C-alpha cells in the first residue's frame, strides 16, 4: 500500500448550486481505524461520504482512498470500499440471494466465489432461512443486516457506513454496533457517520465533529471530552414551575453560565467557573418559583464537548429548509 492512511481527505468542498454543503474539510482515516463523523442533520456528513465513495463529484479538494485519487481512479476506489447507505436500498422485488448475486457480479466475482461469499454472509447475519424471500417483506432490522452483508460481498478493506443505526430499535441497533466492532477487529477500516453522540463515544476510536459543512474538531473521544478544559457540568432537576424550555432561557442569563441545555430530562449547565455559577443559578431558580429536586456536579461528557464547540445541542434541532434541501440533494441518487 502506498500510504498508511486508508482515506485522506483534503480541502474537500461541495456546492449544490449556491448552497455550500461541505466547506474545506480535511481529515484522514488511518488503516484499521474505526473513525466517526459526528454531526447534526444537514451538517454535510452524507455529502462527504458520497464524495469519498466516488458517487458525487467534489467542487474542490481531493480524496485519496488506499492510495488512489477518487477523481482519477474511481473504479479502483469503489472496489476497495463497501458502502452501507443510511436507508436500505436493496431491490425489493428480488430475493436476498439474488440481490447479493447481483452485487457479486458487479464486483466481478466468479460464480464459485460468489456462492461461497454469499453463503458466508447470509450465515453471518442470520439470513440464511429467509434468503429466498423477496426483500420487500423483510423487517427493518433484516434490511439493515442485508445492506451490511451486501457491502461485504467483495470483502472491501474499507467499510463506509452512513448512520448505521438510525431508525433501528434499541436491540437491533445494539446488534449492528456489535457487528461494526467485530468487522473493525477483523482488520477492516470503518468510517461511519452518526448524529448520536453516545454512539460515536462508544464505537469510534477517533471522532471528527462536523457542523454546517465544516470540520470543527477531530480527536479521540477522551481528548474531546478533555477539550472542555476547565469547563464543568452541573446537572439540575427542577420540580415545578415553568416548563423546562423556559428554565433554559432563564438560566442562560445567569452570570458565569456558558451553556445550558436539556439532557435526559435534566437541565445541564456548563460553566468555567462553577463555584460562581452554582449560587447564581440556584437563586435564579428560586426567584422564579422553582424547586430543585436534585443537583449534582458531573464529569463533562462528549455532548458537553460538542455543545462547547458548536454552541448548540445536537438533539431536537428542527431541520431548516436549507437542511432539507441539502438532504434531498445529497440523497436523490444520481448527481
Amino acid at each position, binding site marked *: 500500500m502506498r500510504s498508511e492512511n486508508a482515506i485522506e481527505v483534503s480541502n474537500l468542498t461541495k456546492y449544490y448550486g449556491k448552497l455550500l454543503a461541505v466547506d474545506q474539510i480535511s481529515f484522514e482515516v488511518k488503516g484499521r481505524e474505526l473513525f466517526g463523523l459526528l454531526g447534526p442533520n444537514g451538517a454535510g456528513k452524507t455529502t462527504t461520504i458520497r464524495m469519498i*465513495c*466516488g*458517487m*458525487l*463529484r467534489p467542487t474542490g479538494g481531493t480524496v485519496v482512498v488506499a492510495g488512489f485519487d477518487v477523481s482519477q481512479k*474511481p*473504479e*479502483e476506489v*469503489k*472496489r476497495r*470500499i463497501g*458502502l452501507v*447507505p443510511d*436507508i436500505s*436500498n*436493496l*431491490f*425489493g*422485488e*428480488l430475493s436476498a440471494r*439474488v440481490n447479493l448475486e*447481483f*452485487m457479486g*457480479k*458487479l*464486483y*466481478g466475482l466468479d460464480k464459485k466465489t460468489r456462492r461461497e461469499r454469499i453463503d458466508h454472509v447470509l450465515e453471518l447475519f442470520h439470513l440464511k432461512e429467509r434468503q429466498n424471500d*423477496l426483500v420487500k417483506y423483510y423487517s427493518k432490522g433484516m434490511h439493515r443486516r442485508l445492506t451490511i452483508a*451486501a457491502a461485504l460481498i467483495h470483502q472491501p478493506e474499507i467499510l463506509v457506513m452512513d448512520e448505521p443505526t438510525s431508525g433501528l430499535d434499541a436491540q437491533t441497533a445494539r446488534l449492528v454496533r456489535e457487528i461494526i466492532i467485530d468487522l473493525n477487529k477483523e482488520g477492516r477500516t470503518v468510517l461511519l457517520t452518526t448524529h448520536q453522540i453516545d454512539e460515536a463515544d462508544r464505537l469510534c476510536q477517533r471522532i471528527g465533529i462536523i457542523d454546517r459543512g465544516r470540520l470543527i474538531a477531530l480527536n479521540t473521544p477522551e481528548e474531546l471530552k478533555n477539550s472542555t478544559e476547565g469547563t464543568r457540568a452541573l446537572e439540575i432537576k427542577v420540580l415545578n414551575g415553568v416548563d423546562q424550555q423556559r428554565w433554559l432561557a432563564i438560566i442562560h442569563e445567569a452570570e458565569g453560565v456558558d451553556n445550558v441545555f436539556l439532557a435526559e430530562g435534566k437541565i445541564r449547565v456548563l460553566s468555567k467557573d462553577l463555584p460562581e455559577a452554582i449560587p447564581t443559578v440556584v437563586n435564579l431558580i428560586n426567584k422564579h418559583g422553582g424547586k430543585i429536586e436534585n443537583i449534582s456536579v458531573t464529569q463533562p461528557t462528549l455532548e458537553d464537548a460538542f455543545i462547547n464547540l458548536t454552541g448548540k445541542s445536537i438533539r431536537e434541532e428542527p431541520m431548516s429548509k436549507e437542511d432539507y434541501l441539502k438532504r434531498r440533494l445529497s*440523497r*436523490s*441518487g*444520481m*448527481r
Partner: protein
Amino acid sequence: MKTFKLFTMLTHSIYIAENDLRQSFKSVRHVVWSLLFPLFMMFTFSFRYGVSEPDISFLNFLIPGIVGMTAMFGSINETMSIVWDKSLGVFDRILAAPVSSTSIIIGKTMAGAVMGVISALVLLIVGSSLFGVSFVNISFVLLIVVLASFSFTGIGTIISGLASEPREAMMLSNLLRFPMMFLGGVFFPVEAMPMPLPYIARALPLTYATEALRAVMSKNMAVVLFDATVLVAYTVSTIIIGSKTLMRLMTR
C-alpha cells in the same frame, strides 16, 4: 487491456440489464397489465364500425401498427425503471460499485430494448394467429422491431434523465407516448392526416416503425430500407442524447 476493459464493460451492462428485466418479470402482474393495453386497443379497433365482415385489408394495416406501438410502450415503460431506481436509492448501489457510467447506460438501454421486443412479439403472435395477418418475412419484421425498440428506449432514457421523480417521468412519458400513438400512423394512415399533422408524424420514430412493418408485408423493400435507416439514426442520436443527460447527472 483495452479489449478486456470493453469486455468487462459489456458484461457489466448485461448484468444490469438482466437485473432490470428480472425485476420487471418478477411481478407478473406488471407485465400482464402492460400488455393488456395494446391487446385492448387491438381488439377494439379490429372492428370496422358499420361493416359486418372483418376487413382483412384494414387488419393488415392495423396489426403492424399495433406491434410497433407495443414496442414503444414496452421499451419506454422499462426505461422508467431508471427513475424508480433513483427515487428508491437502488441506483446508488450501482453507482457505488466499480461500474462505468457507460455500462450503466448501455445496460439500461438493453433492458428497454429487450422489453420492447418481447412485448411486440407477444402482440405479433396474438395478432397474426387471431386475425390471420401474415407478416411474410419474419426476419425483416424482427429487425424493424429491434431497431424501433432501441430508438424508443433512447427516448425513454432522455425522459428519465430529465425527470426528477417517478410521477414527473410518467407524466412526461405519457405526454410523448399518447400523441405518438395517434400520430404515428397506428390507427390512421399518415397520408390521410390533415395538413400540419403529417409533418409532425414524420418527426416521430413510431411512424417509421409502422410504415416499415407494413412495407415488409407488401414487400416494398426500398421503403423498409429507408425506414430502417431512419430508425438507426434515431437510435444513435437518442442514445447519445440520453447518455449525455444521464451522464451529466451521474458525474456532476
